[in-house]
């Protein structure tokens, strides 16, 4: 294990030296850590959904289709639900395909929310797919997928 770590460090060092001419995010492409891939997003989604089927619909993921700066992207999720004590949204999750980690936020609601709408601001590192999943009180899962184009990603290698 130790040897493996040493190997990674030296490889990183070499890559870093090679990329010395490239600045900021450019160099980051060479040395960035393992990314979330569509497969790891799938795993993260399965961790939440389990074996249940996920149907498209009911969820509206509102995010600008073209984003200039990935460091702060306003995102809003609205789920169609009467929000009564017997029929409400239990949870809302957001996942990304290419960020270093697939999870973005996990929100737990109850019938007292009145309206199943939440908004926040997220980071996006690259042009990718965003998935929002809603878990209903009856145990069903609904989703919405949006493709977002990023001009400048959230930089992972800011010089400090």
């Amino acid at each position, binding site marked *: 294990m130790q040897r493996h770590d040493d190997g990674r460090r030296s490889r990183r060092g070499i890559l870093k030296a090679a990329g010395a001419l490239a600045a900021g995010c450019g160099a980051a492409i060479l040395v960035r850590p393992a990314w979330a891939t569509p497969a790891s997003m799938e795993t993260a989604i399965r961790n939440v959904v389990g074996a249940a089927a996920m149907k498209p619909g009911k969820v509206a993921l509102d995010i600008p289709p073209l984003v200039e700066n990935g460091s702060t992207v306003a995102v809003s999720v609205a789920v169609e639900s009467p929000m009564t004590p017997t029929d409400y949204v239990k949870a809302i999750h957001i996942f990304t395909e290419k960020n270093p*980690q697939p999870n973005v*936020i996990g929100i737990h*609601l109850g019938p007292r929310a009145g309206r199943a709408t939440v*908004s926040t*601001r*997220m*980071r996006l590192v690259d042009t990718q797919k965003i998935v929002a999943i809603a878990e209903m009180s009856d145990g069903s899962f609904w989703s919405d997928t949006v493709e977002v184009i990023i001009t400048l990603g959230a930089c*992972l290698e800011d010089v400090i």
Partner: protein
Amino acid sequence: MARALINVPAKAKRGEVIAIKTLISHEMETGFRHTTTGVPIPRNIITSFVATYNKEEIFRAVLFPAIAANPFITFYTVATESGTLAFEWTGDNGFSATESATITVE
């Protein structure tokens, strides 16, 4: 102490759905960045946000590094009775912040 801004209507009608906006100052260091010398910058984020209405939990969120710096969260709740809405953020390195607002329900 981190600065937190919250926006809760001071008055509401009974049963009305009200919007709650929260913002807290926090760098949300992802843990995926490195310094110029290649040293990883340790993760320092807010991991959890909980809102309570008269001590009853109405909203809870688990935050990940993909949340932008200065986490901003907006959500809704039903104004059931006059009382206090309390908000609590907790995170890495023992980070903890609380804020509260009162609401009058007619």
